[in-house]
């Protein structure tokens, strides 16, 4: 068969040719629209998530407070036993003084219950840290109890029947009086960041969880960063490609896909059960998290090492550099931005990981921030888990607030990753 010249048989401007071109353009447009639709959906869902969190969590960032003038009576607080003084009485007396006139016992109890049970501890902490306050008058703002806090923020509405709300009509009466006299304020809730966990929502904070997460991530970084880079360098620069290296590669990729709860069980059995490390400790938490972060770092590092142009390796080998010198002087510095990005993303994953920490007991009720790697602690995600599980109304908003704090940290870490990548990347 003789070959044919297409220009003789095909008319580029016929109707069928035009239709063909039209269809191709339509397909291009459709593909673009699908993509825009998918991105729109993703952004929309993210907006819904953040919107609902902010909506339910914003109220936890302020706390309803009342200012008190408390005379620290030397009779109630003895200078040689500052911590053991009767601060409860001092706070109650001062609060009582705000509402002059006789009260029946029932009314008095209802009135005093409006104040947080944690208020005496705030006064005690203040006096313990500065014993010269004994015998003087202290100005201190103390939080209201959770029901009043919720009422002030409008979360508990006024118009539901008394039996269905935790604020009695009597308390609302007192609240209105105090509000009228300008004694109720709602400043920024620093307690959320300075206090550790508490049974009382108005006294509960994230400090313990933040410190616990910091220690756990520190341990995780110190283990997984050097080990991950060393493993990746060996696999990429030294190991010969054979069945064994393939096996290792497949297993590392599988390890990255293992559910995190399994690592938690492993940590429980090996680190706590076999090696006898303490429970609930950030040390163990970090070790478990590093098991999860290692594959991520190894994979990211290998990708970064692969991306270094072979011409740089050749140049270094050609001048007589040893393998060690080629890696340390040329390949690793060029791969560093990618390695750091991968590491920070791995650590951000570890920061949000909950299941393995639950299994090693980092969901304990800890009322003070850990002082070291082996002290019992919680972490941010487990704190969220604990608060989400708590019955008090005030923890609903605090759970959302804690999630916002966690997301804030994740955004900061990703921003650092992007910054490092742009700062360190060398162009050639």
């Amino acid at each position, binding site marked *: 068969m003789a070959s044919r010249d297409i220009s003789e048989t095909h008319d580029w401007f016929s109707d069928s040719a035009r239709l063909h071109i039209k269809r191709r353009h339509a397909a291009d447009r459709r593909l673009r629209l699908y993509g825009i639709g998918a991105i729109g959906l993703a952004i929309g869902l993210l907006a819904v998530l953040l919107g609902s969190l902010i909506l339910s969590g914003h109220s936890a960032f302020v706390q309803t407070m009342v200012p008190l003038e408390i005379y620290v009576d030397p009779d109630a607080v003895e200078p040689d036993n500052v911590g053991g003084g009767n601060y409860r009485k001092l706070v109650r007396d001062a609060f009582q003084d705000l509402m002059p006139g006789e009260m029946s016992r029932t009314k008095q109890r209802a009135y005093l219950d409006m104040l947080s049970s944690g208020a005496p501890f705030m006064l005690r902490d203040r006096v313990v840290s500065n014993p010269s306050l004994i015998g003087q008058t202290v100005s201190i703002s103390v939080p209201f109890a959770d029901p009043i806090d919720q009422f002030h923020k409008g979360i508990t509405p006024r118009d539901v029947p008394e039996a269905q709300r935790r604020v009695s009509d009597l308390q609302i009466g007192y609240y209105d009086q105090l509000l009228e006299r300008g004694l109720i304020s709602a400043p920024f809730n620093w307690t959320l960041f300075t206090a550790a966990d508490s049974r009382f929502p108005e006294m509960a904070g994230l400090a313990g969880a933040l410190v616990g997460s910091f220690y756990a991530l520190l341990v995780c970084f110190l283990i997984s960063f050097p080990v991950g880079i060393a493993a990746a360098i060996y696999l990429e620069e030294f190991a*010969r*490609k054979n069945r064994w290296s393939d096996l290792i590669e497949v297993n590392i990729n599988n390890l990255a896909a293992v559910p995190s709860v399994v690592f938690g069980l492993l940590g429980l059995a090996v680190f706590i059960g076999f090696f006898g490390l303490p429970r609930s400790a950030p040390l163990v938490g970090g070790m478990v998290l590093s098991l999860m972060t290692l594959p991520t770092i190894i994979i990211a590092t290998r990708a970064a090492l692969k991306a270094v*142009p072979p*011409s*740089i*390796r*050749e*140049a*270094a*080998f*050609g*001048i*007589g*550099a*040893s393998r060690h*010198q080629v890696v340390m*002087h*040329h390949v690793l510095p*060029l791969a560093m931005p990618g390695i750091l990005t991968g590491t920070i993303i791995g650590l951000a994953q570890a920061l949000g990981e909950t299941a393995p920490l639950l299994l090693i007991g980092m969901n304990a009720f800890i009322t003070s921030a850990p002082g070291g790697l082996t002290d019992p602690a919680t972490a941010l995600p487990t704190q969220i888990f604990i608060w989400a599980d708590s019955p008090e109304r005030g923890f609903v908003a605090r759970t959302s607030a804690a999630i916002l704090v966690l997301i804030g940290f994740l955004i900061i870490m990703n921003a650092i990753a992007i910054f490092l990548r742009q700062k360190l990347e*060398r*162009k*050639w």
Partner: protein
Amino acid sequence: MVAGSATGRPAGDANDEPEGTQAMSEVEVLEAVKPESSPATRGGPNLSATTAPRARVVARDVHVYYGETHALKGIDLDIHKNEVVSFIGPSGCGKSTFLRCINRMNDVIEGCRVTGEITLDGQDIYARELDVVQLRARVGMVFQKPNPFPKSIYDNVAYGPRIHGLAGSKDVLDGIVEGSLKRAGLWNEVKDRLKEPGTGLSGGQQQRLCIARAIAVNPEVILMDEPCSALDPIATARIEELIDELRENFTIVIVTHSMQQAARVSQRTAFFHLGNLVEWGETEQIFTMPNDERTQGYITGRFG
């Protein structure tokens, strides 16, 4: 497969064959040879001897295998002191592979096996006790694509002396850097910006920087793997001049696809084809009266 001969060459390469070859008549080849045809009058090497005592690199029965592929099939070749030898031949013929045997760069390639014997100054370079790092300091290399380190110009040149511990003090190192850049003909262009990155130079300057980097460790032999294939004609001419100057101090082996270049810069030429060393001898003789008809066919552009 065969490393770095045909693969990865930039498109639109000015020196690319075979078009240039086919366009060049035998007369032009002769003319290109002429200026170089009287090396003996300059006290140049005695080219008639085959295994003269002045042979620097001697290869005997060298075979190279890449996995199952038999890439080089028994190469016997001598490379003499202070002479430029060019390797020519079609893509995939093994000339780059043989070049990389001389400084054992093939060691880096997985599945590559070398048999036979190559000696440098009488010393077997594939001997167990030989340190490959030291060998590569004695046999420098310049690559097809200019590949300066993404460091300053100074650090690029100083890198070799530093890792081999050749410079005891900063002053000595400064001297080596200046001397190397001068010999590479780059000093006047970069002396005021030694701290700037080497990657900011033009292509031709980068390649001269790579040559300066190679000669900074004072090697005995310099291997050049198509050093001009990524450069424009002006930069190419500068490199060729430079090669001629460097011949006084170094032995140079150059792989090239440009026969004019081989004719211009080299005293001896070796023609490779399908893993065999078909013919080698004085450049003039190879280009004017080759003994083998394959050589004849290649240099006249009948295949390539």
